[in-house]
């Protein structure tokens, strides 16, 4: 019985080698997360923050994936749209007293407008110049939020009411205080129904995870986020499967050929940038709910880099991969932020340490190994390893099957088409940029 299982698993691994890498990453991460869960007194707090971070960043990452994975535009200014979504929705609602729906819609419109405006001068540039320009765009938005004290700062809560950079998120504060939402799930009748069902089935997940300690607003928020994430996923997968998505992939592979068949590449690029800015603005509106108050320095370029972790580890160009990447990295980041885990990782290696003390004394080193920096070192290393050894990510983009069209051709036409493809490939951007590396291998 057991042998059958093993052989089935090994054949599965042979078919999908990325499964093994996935497991090698997922098992320690999940174990670390479970360990973090067991050390907590109220487990549902961590569960809520994990789930909300997962959903928010999934929406952000999938909008990035539409640009990088499907179109090949490495946008490093994603944080700008997070900032615009979060800031404008919170500002309009809490300072200018606009109704929340209008505030959100304005935020989305402004962030897609910014995406459009930023795309006009940049999408024609080569990939690295595009990256520089988008980083600069993201920093520019941050400067504006930092410096525009007349319009974009909020009056402080304390009496003199001088404008401060810190925006208190009234939408979240109100949501946590309105009557049905401020109750714990354990006080609701429906929870007891669920619990009795659970008791009937003799599983104890709800009790084990302290689900009754969750607030109603948390559950509501998660439900709304889940629906938004699902809708975004569906929308983007729809785009990918449509002829529009096929054109995008063709542009990513070889924009010159696409131009030669009469497609306006520039139009496709700005359209996708704008759509992606819209979705990322939505993620920004959602992201605001993870703060009671936030300020401009919460939107640093690191946020964009974290999105790249999700997309590249998970797999470019498909929603499933992005989800897997987001889930893995979010679990890791959340587990690393739990206090008990931090205490275990924290280490001071200095002259007073027993092992290399005198050596470090001469070198004048005091090394503080702390989880906050360590997690970025680990994630960065994993990212580079993926880029080198598994560029497709954990779940690679499904290859389009051209065989069914090519089989319709006559052998002569088939040979002509193969010839054209190979001739074209030698001229693609990759080859032009990294020419001559084969010769190095030879020599």
């Amino acid at each position, binding site marked *: 019985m057991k042998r059958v299982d093993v052989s089935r698993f090994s054949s599965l691994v042979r078919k999908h080698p990325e499964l093994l890498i996935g497991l090698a990453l997922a098992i320690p991460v999940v174990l670390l997360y479970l360990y973090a869960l067991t050390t907590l007194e109220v487990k549902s707090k961590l569960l809520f923050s994990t789930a909300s971070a997962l959903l928010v960043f999934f929406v952000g990452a999938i909008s990035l994936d539409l640009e990088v994975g499907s179109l090949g535009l490495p946008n490093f200014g994603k944080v700008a749209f997070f900032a615009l979504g979060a800031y404008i929705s919170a500002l309009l609602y809490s300072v200018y007293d606009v109704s929340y729906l209008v505030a959100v819609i304005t935020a989305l419109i402004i962030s897609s407008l910014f995406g459009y405006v930023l795309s006009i001068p940049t999408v024609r540039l*080569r990939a690295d110049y595009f990256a520089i320009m988008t980083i600069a765009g993201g920093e*520019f938005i941050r400067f504006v939020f930092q*410096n525009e004290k007349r319009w974009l700062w909020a009056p402080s809560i304390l009496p003199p009411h001088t404008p401060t950079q810190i925006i208190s998120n009234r939408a979240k504060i109100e949501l946590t205080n309105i009557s049905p939402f401020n109750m714990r799930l354990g006080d609701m009748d429906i929870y007891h129904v669920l619990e009795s069902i659970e008791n009937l089935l003799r599983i104890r997940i709800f009790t084990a995870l302290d689900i009754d300690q969750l607030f109603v607003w948390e559950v509501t928020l998660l439900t709304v986020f889940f629906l938004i994430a699902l809708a975004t996923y569906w929308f983007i997968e729809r785009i990918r499967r449509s002829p529009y998505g096929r054109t995008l992939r063709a542009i990513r592979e070889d924009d010159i050929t696409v131009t030669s068949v009469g497609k306006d590449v520039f139009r496709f690029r700005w359209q996708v940038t704008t759509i992606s800015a819209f979705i990322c603005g939505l993620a920004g509106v959602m992201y605001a709910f993870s703060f009671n108050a936030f300020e401009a320095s919460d939107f640093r370029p690191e946020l964009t880099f974290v999105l790249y972790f999700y997309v590249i580890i998970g797999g470019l160009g498909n929603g499933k991969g992005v989800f897997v990447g987001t889930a893995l990295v979010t679990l890791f980041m959340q587990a690393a932020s739990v206090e008990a885990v931090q205490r275990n990782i924290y280490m001071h290696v200095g002259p007073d340490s027993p092992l290399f003390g005198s050596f470090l004394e001469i070198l*004048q080193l005091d090394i503080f190994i702390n989880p906050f920096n*360590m997690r970025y*070192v680990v994630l*960065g290393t994993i990212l580079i390893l993926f880029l080198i050894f598994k560029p497709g990510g954990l779940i690679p983009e499904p290859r389009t099957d051209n065989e069914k069209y090519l089989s319709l051709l006559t052998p002569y036409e088939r040979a002509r088409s193969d010839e054209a493809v190979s001739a074209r490939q030698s001229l693609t951007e990759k080859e032009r*940029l990294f020419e001559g590396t084969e010769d190095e291998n030879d020599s």
Partner: protein
Amino acid sequence: MTLPNLLNHATLALVYAGVLIMLTIGLNMVYSVLKFSNFAHAEWVTMGMFASWWFLQILSYILPWDTAHLLNNLFVHAVFGFLIVGIFGILGEVLVFDRLRKLKAGLDSAIVASIAIGLIVRNFLAMVFGAYPEPNRAICPTCTSQPSLPGFLPDLNNIVTIKLVENDPIFGTQWIRINASGILIIVTSIAMVLAIDYVFRHTKFGIAMRATADSIELAQVSGVDTRRIVHYTWFLAAGLTGMGAAIYRPYLTGPFNSLTGLYMLLPFFAVVILGGVGSFRGGIIAAIIIAYARQATVVIFSWFQYPGGLEEILEEHIGFTITFSPGYADAIPFVILIIVLLIRPRGIAGSVEATRERV
């Protein structure tokens, strides 16, 4: 209405231009030889600062008698910074970029990889040296409070002040105030550019490097060992950046941390793109333009904020105004980048139009 202290601002801008020139030589070299923008460059700057600071700590510990600063001086620290950062430059090439190139990975992967390297190095430095360079046992007591340290051959904190006008009703106060460190930065930056320019134009090594930059295949046909040239390029580029950072460090007035380099990344790219990829003399002009544009923004925007300035005028006559904060000066590179990439993508002196390769 008295003028602000324009001469002082001009001096500050000149030193800033020197810093930009010094720190962008390496970026420009990697750009022109390897044809990709190295985002980890910012971390080389940070690493150079930390490395030279660290070597100062070591030397003050093992050479306590060296009060005359025969060995424990800025130039030794700078050489140490050169070696350490240069070695890391080669490591990045051997471990990551070389492999990526062999895989024929796209430009996107190289960019993402360089950003990831930057992230790793930044956080690694933060762990090793702490977020701020503050050792818990002060060996040189002034080191912790003040990063501009004792004993840089002549005392670098010597301030030269030339007062031209003082409390004049029209011109206000105009002075030139520069410390020895600022002068050292300007001199070093010019010397570095001239030296590198000479190496690139007139030595065999530099010509091989330029041949590699033009076409790797042709260079190989002519018998150039391009692999060695690429490694030397990384070593020199990273090393010069680390050395520049070590020389820049005593000029800083506040403590530096692991993010210091990252904040300067955009001005760096603005200098390289405005000056033209592959042109070091263009870089000088670009650095001066950017430094002066930045300082001018500070002057003009703070002038707008004075009573009776543009903000008040707008408020009175239109009833609507925005804040002209001098903090926008940091966004100047962004504006310059947009203008350059729209109007003249090859920069002031670049000969190869490297920017627009897409349809």
